[in-house]
């Protein structure tokens, strides 16, 4: 299926969870937060969050800022 991750289209296995996506995309999930379709997905819930085709996922972390 296809989902949008941080604004870019991304293919991922059907049935993948948010945890799977993060593991696949990032070296580490330290300091990372996620939103799915504009709702916060708490870190603890990721293994149980089944992704669906067409969803938009935002993965954020802290960067230098004012």
């Amino acid at each position: 299926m296809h989902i949008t991750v941080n604004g870019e289209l991304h293919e991922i296995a059907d049935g993948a969870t948010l945890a799977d996506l993060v593991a696949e995309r990032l070296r580490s999930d330290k300091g990372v937060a996620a939103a799915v379709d504009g709702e916060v997905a708490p870190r603890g819930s990721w293994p149980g969050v089944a992704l669906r085709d067409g969803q938009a996922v935002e993965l954020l972390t802290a960067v230098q800022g004012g």
Partner: protein
Amino acid sequence: MSDELVLAGEKLGSRLILGTGGAPSLQVVDEVIGASGTALCTVSMRRVDPSTAGSILDVLSRHGVRILPNTAGCRTAREAILTAQLARDALDTEWVKLEVIADDDTLLPDAIELVDAAERLVADGFKVFPYTNDDPILARRLQRVGCVAVMPLGAPIGSGLGILNPHNIELIVAEAEVPVVLDAGVGTASDATLAMELGCDAVLLASAVTRAQDPGLMAAAMAAAVDAGRLARLAGRIPKREHAHASSPTTGMAVL
């Protein structure tokens, strides 16, 4: 004399809060944190970029400074609240520097969205540090909805114009029941000193240090500047007089 800053119940070892934005590299961030002696630094929440090496979080934890995530760039209460919630989840802190700006040119806060967001974040358990304009009435409202501090600007973000309206800052300080942090506008050390002399409890700045020609030196300058202003406030300055007042004895003059 013990004169610690207490924010949201936490003691902080410095009255200088450092924004990490604008620094050309994490090395510079590392340098300015050390030179400034700060105990609290702001960060922004942005999309993960797997390609970037090193993390601001590592630098901050190495220095043992607290993290104050901001909602920079958010234009509505809704965006700011979601960003704050993501920051809380990612960084495991309820502290948030709440920014809700009206546009990307002035970067000035939108009073109405700001109060709305503050009220809802407080209800959600956050310790809210709102970046606000210098309107004493808005500062009062932000306290009433439960913000743990108010952070009025001295001048627009990054402008380096200093404190354009000291009178408003004094009005805010005079009635504040929470710490007042001068946020934005500081361009050089004397601006930070003045902020503390006006009665602010702390100063938050980024560009003045991170974009200075020598960021490390300016970080040290700001540390001294905040101390100077705080001590002067506590010491009680002499009154201003229209006329001179001799500091050498006017008696005992020889007749030569």
